[in-house]
């Protein structure tokens, strides 16, 4: 009570400290162990310090083409990020004005967040199988010999995979837009309108700068959730189209050396870089806003 802290402060602070240790401790462990010496194994002690396992990783991991999966995940993440921001922003505007069926759309979005990923993944997987069958059937009926011979599947990273990821990222984006517009003061827009701004000008010069930090947040959710998504993609990607988290899940049962830690370190670095860049961007935007006032 020395500095007037309420009772229980130090106990709670200790719990919080332990919780942070619990959150970050294991992650730090595998980052440290990824620099294991060439003779070292999956656990401590460290047999020297080296980048041996990163070099092995760089050369690929033999069986699976890990860098192809890496590139696929990166491209998909960027596309999902862009689409999540734009679609969520538009939908946020729509919900603000209100429209018939708003309740249905909202609860569908919440349901998409809550329905187990394996069910969504299964549904998308089967749906695209049936779609393939329908395309084959139609092509045969129309006598499109070229198509029947070359067509294999409509499922892929940027069809079924993209859709599966959006069902996971869009609910987060929409919820953030709700939070943004619930706190948004409409008098800024009214002022802009009174001064003769068109709706587009109001959006471009008044609303957008104010909500830009939140849009960066939505983008952050969009990229990171896609980059790390495993359960929802599992059945929804074409054959040999696995994303990095899926390859990683597979590797947990087969790889018995620190290569997997090196891979973990690399993916975590990508995540942290994106998080860091987003936070910096948010800060810059906030600063600029504060200066503008």
């Amino acid at each position: 009570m020395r500095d007037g802290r309420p009772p229980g402060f130090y106990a709670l602070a200790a719990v919080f400290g332990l919780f942070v240790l619990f959150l970050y401790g294991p992650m730090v462990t595998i980052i440290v162990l990824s620099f294991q010496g060439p003779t070292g194994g999956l656990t401590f002690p460290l047999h020297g310090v080296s980048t041996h396992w990163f070099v092995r990783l760089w050369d690929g991991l033999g069986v699976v083409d890990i860098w192809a999966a890496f590139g696929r995940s990166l491209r998909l993440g960027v596309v999902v990020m862009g689409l999540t921001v734009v679609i969520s922003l538009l939908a946020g505007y729509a919900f603000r004005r209100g429209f018939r069926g708003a309740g249905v759309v909202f609860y569908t979005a919440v349901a998409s967040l809550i329905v187990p990923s394996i069910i969504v993944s299964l549904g998308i997987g089967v749906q695209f199988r049936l779609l393939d069958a329908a395309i084959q059937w139609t092509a045969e009926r129309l006598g499109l010999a070229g198509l029947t011979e070359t067509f294999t599947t409509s499922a892929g990273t940027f069809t079924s995979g993209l859709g599966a990821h959006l069902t996971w990222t869009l609910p987060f984006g929409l919820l953030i837009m709700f939070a943004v517009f619930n706190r948004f003061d409409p008098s800024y827009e009214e002022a802009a309108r009174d001064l003769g701004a068109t709706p587009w000008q109001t959006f471009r010069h008044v609303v957008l700068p104010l909500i830009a930090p939140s849009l960066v947040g939505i983008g952050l959710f969009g990229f990171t959730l896609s980059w790390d998504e495993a359960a929802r993609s599992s059945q929804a990607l074409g054959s040999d189209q696995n994303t990095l988290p899926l390859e990683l899940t597979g590797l947990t049962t087969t790889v018995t050396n620190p290569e997997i830690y090196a891979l973990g370190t690399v993916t975590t670095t990508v995540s942290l870089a994106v998080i860091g860049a987003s936070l910096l961007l948010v800060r810059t935007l906030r600063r600029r806003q504060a200066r503008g006032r």
Partner: protein
Amino acid sequence: MSGGRAGTAVLPRPASVPVTAVAAWRRRLTSGAAAPYWQVAPLALVFAFFFVLPLAVTVVVSGWRYNEYSMTPAVVGDNYAAVFSGCLSELPGLCLTFKTYLSTLKFCALAWLLTLVLGFTVAYFLAFHVRSVTVQMALFLVCTIPFWTSNVIRMISWVPLLGRNGLVNSVLLATGAVPQPVTWLLFSDFSVVLAFVHLYTMFMIVPIFNSMSRIDHALLEAARDAGASGWQALWNVVVPLSRPGIVIGSIFVVTVVMGDYVTIGVMGGQQIASIGKVIQVQLSYLQFPLAAANAVVLLVAVLMVIAAMTRLVDVRKEL
């Protein structure tokens, strides 16, 4: 608001300049009555095609016949009969499906209880004991950052700590606490629950913190002035007012654990059953209708849990 002062500030558009068709069209597009409909259309279409339709397909396919090579459209209950085979005849013993649900329910209960207690404590500390908003946001961010990193990586990061030759066992052996390495630490029920708590406490902290940050601190002082002890104020003021956050967090944690197969797979050493795992294995054998039937049963179970929980709170008012 704009009409009253029009005479002074806003000049009326001269009649001689016709409003071009494009401008009128653009205006209708951005502020007309139809605007919300095209604005929500992309979102609605994504959910229609990649969420609602797949669920409908799943329900339909669950009634189909199948063999090793193909599926045949039908409306039969065979797949559901297969899901629940032996569930009646084996009573009072449990059939495989009931056993799996019981095991999943056990993980749900444990994960829910632990994430709730831990999440509530952390949120309470952030909301009521950290005074500076900047520090509050910084600490909140510290809790959130792991959520944006890979779940699979966060799972395997327990291996060097809990394995047979892991850090925990080394310490236990060195101190003489145990004569030989403890084996239940990894690839066990324990490690599965630990991973759930590790991964999903975040789902509790955020909504509970959100509810708590709206509680007027004067209420706590009033409770204290009225003679309530710290615990009484916590139980009778903070907990009821945090209920919406608690319910939202609970829905997240319970549903995510109910459908999980990745965490149970990786942390259980692929040895522990779960409904999600059953579905995944059936899919790997291309038994789509059977997997679909299992998915429908799981979906019904999840919906029942959510229905029970949403009775307690209106999600939309809380954002």
